[in-house]
């Protein structure tokens, strides 16, 4: 239980980049798994893979639900620089997090498109096999490989734009 919770929470956190939202989605995942446990068949792959599929579906639902909010946020991001600096100054903990490389990578991850983001998270952070990712995303292996590759290149370019160079 603890192992599954940790894994699911990490997938959610890396995808949404927010602890509270990740916890809410993780709870939803376990509720959904609990209610639809009867529909699980071993032909769907391992139980962990099936749970990851449920998680991925809920993350995509969440992404679509909050799309409007993010658009509003992006308008806020376009506000004058002075105001932006003030808001950052009010949240020193987040600033400290951003200063760390992992925080910067996390920040860059949330700027990827959801298709590329989920592929990179499953492959490079969860270190899943291509076949498992194929089952989770329900797309052909070629598409999986393509998304992972594009995701990595996009992420590297975003970090480059942010002036971050992983070493």
């Amino acid at each position, binding site marked *: 239980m603890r192992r599954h919770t940790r894994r699911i929470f990490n997938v959610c956190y890396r995808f949404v980049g927010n602890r509270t939202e990740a*916890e809410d989605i993780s709870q939803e995942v376990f509720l959904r798994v609990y209610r639809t446990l009867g529909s699980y068949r071993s032909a769907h792959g391992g139980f962990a893979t099936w749970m990851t599929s449920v998680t991925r579906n809920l993350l995509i639902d969440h992404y679509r639900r909050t799309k409007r909010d993010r658009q509003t946020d992006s308008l806020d991001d376009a506000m004058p620089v002075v105001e932006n600096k003030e808001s950052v100054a009010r949240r020193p903990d987040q600033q400290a997090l951003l200063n760390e490389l992992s925080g910067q990578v996390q920040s860059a991850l949330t700027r990827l498109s959801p298709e590329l983001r989920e592929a990179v998270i499953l492959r490079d952070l969860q270190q899943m096999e291509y076949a498992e990712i194929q089952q989770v995303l329900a797309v052909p292996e070629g598409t999986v490989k393509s998304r992972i590759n594009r995701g990595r290149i996009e992420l590297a370019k975003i970090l480059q734009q942010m002036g971050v160079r992983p070493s």
Partner: protein
Amino acid sequence: MTWTCDQIEAQLSDYLEGLLPAQDRAEFESHVHACSDCAPLLASVKDLMTELRSMDEVEVSPRLIYSILDQTLGPRETVSGWQSFQKFIRGLATPKFAYGVASVLATLVIVVSTFGISFRKPKLADLHPVTVYRNVDRQAHLSYARLVRSVSDWRVVYEIQSRLRQGENELQAPSEDNAPQSTPENQPGQKDDHTRTQPKQQNRANEIGRQMELLAAQCPVVFERSIR
């Protein structure tokens, strides 16, 4: 065939994960070494992959796990009111707890007695440090005196017992020597000379009596107690 930059970009992950065939790998490397755009891209993606795979997992708060358990299995069983009281009483009615309570009470009684605090008439003044110290000091001296007296009493009793035993041995020895012997010289109807030993036995008894009186005079405590 020479690879283009687009081809390099498309095969970047396969190259980094070692999935390219040897010939494609050679083509890939020859292009990257010659291309000023692809070389830094390859390096940055390689570093990114290393960074992503070394990122620590985020810790889950215990609250999340309890929350999930509550939502899936229902709220945890919470006992309240009379049931909790019954559960508490059941917990007390165990031999382990009874032994523990008995040990604590015995220790308490010993400590309180040592401090000289009276159970019948407890006073707040008994808890004053000076009073406690005096009582402990008094109890210690009294205990020491009782111990010394007991040892002394037992020593006297032992001495009396050993002297009595010695006296009995002395009494038995002459009686064996003076046991009646049938002599062929005795005529039928003639008496044995038993009267010869009677004064000696009387002397021994008198001597033990005198020793007892002497001990009684020396150890009045023991004899007074035995009289009582």
